């Protein structure tokens, strides 16, 4: 099924994507090796990479412990965002009373950086997973609610009329018209939510994680002056975020809204 030209195309796109990144790494390597800044403060990418590999190795597999903990917190917080945000967004999209009720609440909550809540949450429930999860939730809920509500309202009235003329009741309209019709927005909201949640999580971990987490790893390495570990941590954040966006959400989009022609393919 897969044609040779498609493989060549995919290869081309990958190279196109990687080239600028590679170029920056090369320049970084040259600058670092020129020793203008002491290497323990500004390590070369090769050194960072080496450090990252070491962190991944037995007996401690330290890096994986940190990464696992961060993933777990993100997944829990993101799950809450989706589980609570999607229903609120749908309600706001469908009913003007819900829209009028939630809009002022969202408007006053939106400007508050979620990490500002962290000290209060820490006082209430202490350091640990739950505090991080709450910060992720408070960050990620907004894009979900706003996008889902916009998505539901963007579904054209004639679509609903068409379904009703075929005998669709409220439930059918909701499940078979509004939900799939709003899917491009829902996915965009979830994507932003996961991305924002991931960034906020790292900050939360620096403040409130007790033993593990990538944010904790970066922050703790400071005490040991381990700049290479810090760099390794920072770069791994990018890699994880990228994989999440590209392979989880990218794949869902390919199989749904892009296949349906609801989203332009580039």
């Amino acid at each position, binding site marked *: 099924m897969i044609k040779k030209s498609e493989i060549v195309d995919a290869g081309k796109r990958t190279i196109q994507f990687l080239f600028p990144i590679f170029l920056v790494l090369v320049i970084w390597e040259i600058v670092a090796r020129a020793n203008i800044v002491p290497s323990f403060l500004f390590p070369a990418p090769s050194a960072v990479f080496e450090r990252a590999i070491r962190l991944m190795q037995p007996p401690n597999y330290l890096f994986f412990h940190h990464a696992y903990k961060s993933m777990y917190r993100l997944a829990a917080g993101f799950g809450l965002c989706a589980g609570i945000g999607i229903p609120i967004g749908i309600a706001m999209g469908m009913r003007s009373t819900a829209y009028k009720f939630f809009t002022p609440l969202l408007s006053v909550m939106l400007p508050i950086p979620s990490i500002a809540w962290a000290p209060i949450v820490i006082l209430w429930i202490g350091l640990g997973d739950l505090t991080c999860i709450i910060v992720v939730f408070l960050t990620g809920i907004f894009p979900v609610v706003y996008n889902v509500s916009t998505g539901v309202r963007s579904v054209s009235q004639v679509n609903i009329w*068409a379904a009703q*003329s*075929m005998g669709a009741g409220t439930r059918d309209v909701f499940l078979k018209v509004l939900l799939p019709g709003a899917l491009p927005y829902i996915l965009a909201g979830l994507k932003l939510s996961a991305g924002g949640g991931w960034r906020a999580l790292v900050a939360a971990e620096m403040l409130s994680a007790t033993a593990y987490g990538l944010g904790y790893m970066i922050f703790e390495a400071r005490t040991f002056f381990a700049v290479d570990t810090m760099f390794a941590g920072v770069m791994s954040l990018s890699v994880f975020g990228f994989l999440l966006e590209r392979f989880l959400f990218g794949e869902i989009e390919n199989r749904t809204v892009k*296949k349906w022609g609801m989203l332009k393919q580039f």
Partner: protein
Amino acid sequence: MGNAETVLNKRRCTIEAQKVKKIFSDGKKEVLAIEDITLKVYEKEFAVLIGPSGCGKSTFLYIVAGFYKPTSGKVIVNGKEVKKPGRDRGIVFQEYVLFPWMTVIDNIAFGLRLGKTSKEEALKIAKKYVDLVGLTGFENAFPHTLSGGMKQRVAIARAFAYNPEVMLMDEPFGSLDAQTRKYMIRDLSEIIEKTAKTTLFVTHSVEEAMSLADKIFILSARPSKVIKTVEIKEERPRDVTDPKFLEIKKEIMEVLGKEVMKMKKMEEEIPTEEGGEFK
């Protein structure tokens, strides 16, 4: 009651509009879209509503469909007053309105599935309609991959497949190019002959009206009312270039032409005011 009236009453009246009036209001401004539409469409009749663009004919169709409520008057379909959209009235829109997340066959089977037909049975019937509208081989295609004409074929098949009692069509060929439109008219003529379904069809094309209609209601410029009814008894498919249609065309144009001019003038005078039609 006269003799002719009694004869007419023997045929079942399927769609009946009584003094339908529609005023659109946005709180500040009111637009009288429909002044008074009173009409009857009998069983198995193909009725066409023709009028100048923006005269409110689509608005009237949407009232029959149950999408809009009339300001006063009422529409009765099969003896029941229309209150909301329902499965007894199939609709075909100008802009197709297919569900992009469903394949061609799933779009067509959708109405059947909502009617609790088993999946297997629904797909079987849907397949029949895929063939009827000439889309064999495109069952599993998604709508966005189809041309405008093909999309409208899917929309027509979708509306016919679940067998509603009446069919409402809102300028279904309005977005198609002239060539495609010609084929669509021919094919729809065949479907009409096969299914003999009571239909209310909205258009501003005299050619479409003459090709398809048993009865043509000519609407005035806004605020609209029925100003003339023309019956055509020729068999379908029809060749409207035939000389016998010239007389009918003249009869329609005489009335319609004036209304089109009125509407044009109205639009020039108040260019910001839009009618009730959603385009």
